[in-house]
Structures are given as structure tokens and as C-alpha cells.
């Protein structure tokens, strides 16, 4: 209990207070302390990476051992990762190596494809869900359409009123105004709230009131 609760809380409190005070102390000792903390932070983080590496193989090994649902994919995960590591060590990672080719022609393609699916989901959602049900929803819809038109080159030729009134703003100009004025104002208000919330959360963590970072049960 001491190791799992009291000691982590004590470390958090001591380090939080020291580094909080350190920021405002412009002395060489304070700078050296901070530089030491940064170096240690990087080293500890690297050990965390090793932990993640071991955890990845352990989780998939257990899935294979227990024949959990979709366990063949765990075989693929372990197999492919080991192959990539092997080629990375043998040939290196520069352009033209097997490692680089596997990265570019498999991993990049897969990740890009997964993200590209969003384009189809968004268009389907736009058709089914973007409804002018209320005044606010209508305003949001109009703003969204203007910004979408303002962010493409076709927005300029589609601003047909400019044929009659050349000095009038185009879709691009209106979209820029929406982003620079009402959007900016709302975002700033949100950022102020978020900033205050982060300060409060940080204080709660340092003082041991907020303990969710220690895992479940606290």
C-alpha cells in the first residue's frame, strides 16, 4: 500500500512543488536542477518505451496461447513486427531498404487508407444528419457550407454576385472572416476555460486530490 499509494503521492507533491518554484528562480542552481530533470525525464521515458515494447509482445503472446477471438491476427502482428525489426537491424532504415519499403508501401498505405475512410463516412453523415432543425442548426449549416466553399478554388468562380458587384466579398473572403472573427472569439473563450481547468487539475494532482493517474481504484 505504501509503495502503491503514499510514495507516488509524495513524489508527485515534492516534484510538483520543486519544479513549480524552480520556474520562477533565475539562479544557476535552479537551471541545473531543471536540466537534470529534463535529462532524467528522457531516460525514464525511454524505459517506458521498452516497457511498451515488452507489453505488446506479452499481450499478443497471451492471446495466441489462450486462443482468444481473432488470435491469428496476433500471430500476424508479432510476425510482421519481428520481420521489420530484423530487416531494420540488418539493412538499416534509409530509403531503398526493405524496412523503408515495408514502411512506405505497407504501413503508410494502410494508415492512409484507414483515415481516408473518413471522407466516405463524413459524406454519408452529411447527407443523413446535417439537418436545419432549428435556428442554431441552420446557422451552423450555412457557416459550414460557406467555409467548405471558401476552402476550395471553385469558391471564387461560384461567387457569382461578383459579376454584378466586383468589390463584394467572395466565398473565400466570407469564410476567412468566419474563421478570423466569430470562430477565433469562441476558440479563445474555450482556450481560456481550458487553461484555467488545466491549472486547477495540475494543482489537484500535485496536492494529491486527483489520483486517476495512479490507475484504477484511486
Amino acid at each position, binding site marked *: 500500500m505504501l509503495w502503491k499509494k503514499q510514495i507516488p503521492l509524495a513524489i508527485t507533491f515534492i516534484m510538483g512543488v520543486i519544479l513549480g518554484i524552480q520556474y520562477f528562480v533565475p539562479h544557476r542552481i535552479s537551471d541545473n536542477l531543471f*536540466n537534470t530533470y*529534463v*535529462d532524467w*525525464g*528522457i531516460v525514464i*521515458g*525511454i524505459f517506458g*518505451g521498452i516497457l511498451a515494447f515488452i507489453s505488446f509482445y506479452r499481450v499478443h503472446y497471451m492471446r495466441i496461447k489462450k486462443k482468444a477471438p481473432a488470435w491469428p491476427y496476433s500471430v500476424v502482428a508479432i510476425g510482421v513486427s519481428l520481420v521489420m525489426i530484423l530487416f531494420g537491424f540488418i539493412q538499416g*532504415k*534509409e*530509403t531503398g531498404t526493405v524496412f*523503408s519499403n515495408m*514502411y*512506405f508501401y505497407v*504501413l*503508410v498505405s*494502410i*494508415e*492512409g487508407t*484507414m*483515415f*481516408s475512410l473518413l*471522407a*466516405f463516412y*463524413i*459524406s*454519408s453523415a*452529411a*447527407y*443523413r444528419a*446535417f*439537418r*436545419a432543425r432549428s435556428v442554431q442548426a441552420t446557422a451552423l*449549416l450555412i457557416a*459550414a*457550407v460557406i467555409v*467548405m*466553399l471558401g*476552402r*476550395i*478554388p*471553385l469558391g*471564387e*468562380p461560384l461567387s457569382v454576385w461578383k459579376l454584378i458587384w466586383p468589390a463584394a466579398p467572395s466565398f*473565400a473572403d466570407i469564410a*476567412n472572416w468566419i*474563421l*478570423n472573427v466569430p*470562430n*477565433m472569439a469562441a*476558440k*479563445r473563450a474555450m*482556450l481560456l476555460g481550458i487553461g484555467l481547468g488545466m491549472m486547477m487539475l495540475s494543482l489537484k494532482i500535485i496536492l494529491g486530490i486527483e489520483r486517476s493517474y495512479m490507475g484504477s481504484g484511486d
Partner: protein
Amino acid sequence: MKIDRRVIYLIIALAMILPFFFPMGLPIPATKEVKSVYNYIEGLTSNDVVIISADFDPSVSPELLPMFDAMFRHCLRKGVKVLVTSQMVQGPGLVEPIIHEAAKEYRKTNGVDYAFLGWQYGYSLVVINMMENLKQTYPTDYYGTRTDELPILRRVNNYEDYDLITSITGSSTYMMWLMYAHEPYNVPVACGVTAVSAADVYPYIQSGQFIGMLGGLKGAAEYETLIGEKRMATMGMEAQNWAHIAIILFIIIGNIGYIAIGRKKRGA
């Protein structure tokens, strides 16, 4: 009014594929946020140092890789010293071919005209360390050469030597550069973000914390227009044109159906 989802997917797919074969070639005027970044780099000299941090992974690379390509080429053309880093482990692998190709085209030498420092574990701690001591943070470059042996880094040591830092990211990594490079050390910072994240950055541009921003594929296309090299982003804008139009048409059709059904129900 119900349209089968597969019909919607087919129309979107056609809207994105056909423009590659039938491009419209419409002009892409630059916005002031993109022009700010361009003008800043235009004002730099061969003694100045720009750090471009490729803080993105493959999922957002279609939007951000063209940005990196355009900015890196601009810096090479200006003769500005470029240092390429990444705070994401997958970033260096994505940009390495781009660096290779651009350096070959502009006849620039690694270690002399630019340096590819790669990725170091540590995230914000790496940024803080870089501001104090670059060579300690990156003892070797991406290819394993010691950084204290690179001619380009002979006079580059810490934040006093950085003239611009640009973070190209699909997440909120730009905040890290803002908090740990700009605010304490006053290093000028710009960012390149996805279109989705662009709206979040405007408060920082308005306050002067970011000198400018490249937002989404359009931002990259605007930058390509400014540097006079129409490449990936300009090509991608052809597809984005028609994809946006298709989505807007779906919204209009959906709302026409919604209003018509509403009127029918009220009439009944």
C-alpha cells in the same frame, strides 16, 4: 428521401478520382496566414536557420507531407539552413524520401546545406533540451553522423541561433513548440496543421504567437503557388474541389427532403 449509402460512396469516389484525369487548373490565391510564413522565409538569408519539425504520422501525411515538401523546397531554394526533426516516431520515415528528392533536385548536401536530425524520444522534453543545447539533444543525425562533425551545425547551438521553427502536425504538437520554444525563448514559430485543426490556431495567430499557419491541403497548395512549384497539394486540390461540392449537394438534397417531409406531415 433515402439514398443508398453505397451510391453516396460511389459518387464521392468518382468526385475524388475523376479530377486527376480532368483537372480544372483553377488559381489558388494565398491567404494572409500562408503569406506571412512565406514572406518570413523570403526575408531570411543563408546565415539563418529554420527548423522544420515533421510531427505527423502516415494517417495525416496526404495533407501534411505536401506542406513539408513545399516549405523544405522553399528553404533550400533560399539557401536558408534547414534542420529537420520530428517529435513523432513515424515522422522521419515519411519525410526522408522528400528530403532526398528535393536535395538532389536543388543540388544541396546533407550536413552542409541541411541536416536531418530524426526523432528523439522525449516529446516536450526534447524541445526544452533543444532550446538549451541542440547537439546534446541530437548527438547524431538520422544517418548516425555525429552532429558536432556536421558543418551546418558548427555555429548552431541553442535557441539564439534558431530563426524560425515550423511544426507540421496533425495533432496539438504545435502547442508544445509554442509553450516551450516561443514563450520562454521568444523563438518565432509557425505551424502547418490539418484543415480540421486549423480553426483552433487562429487565436494564436491573432495574438502574434504564431507568425502564420498553413491550414490543410489548401494551405499547402497556396504555399506551392507562392513558391511557383505546383506539386502534390495542387493536384490534391482538384479532388478536394469536387469532393466538397458533392458533400454540399448531399447536404442540400438531404435538407430538401427533410423540409418536404415536414411540410407533408403538417399538411396531413
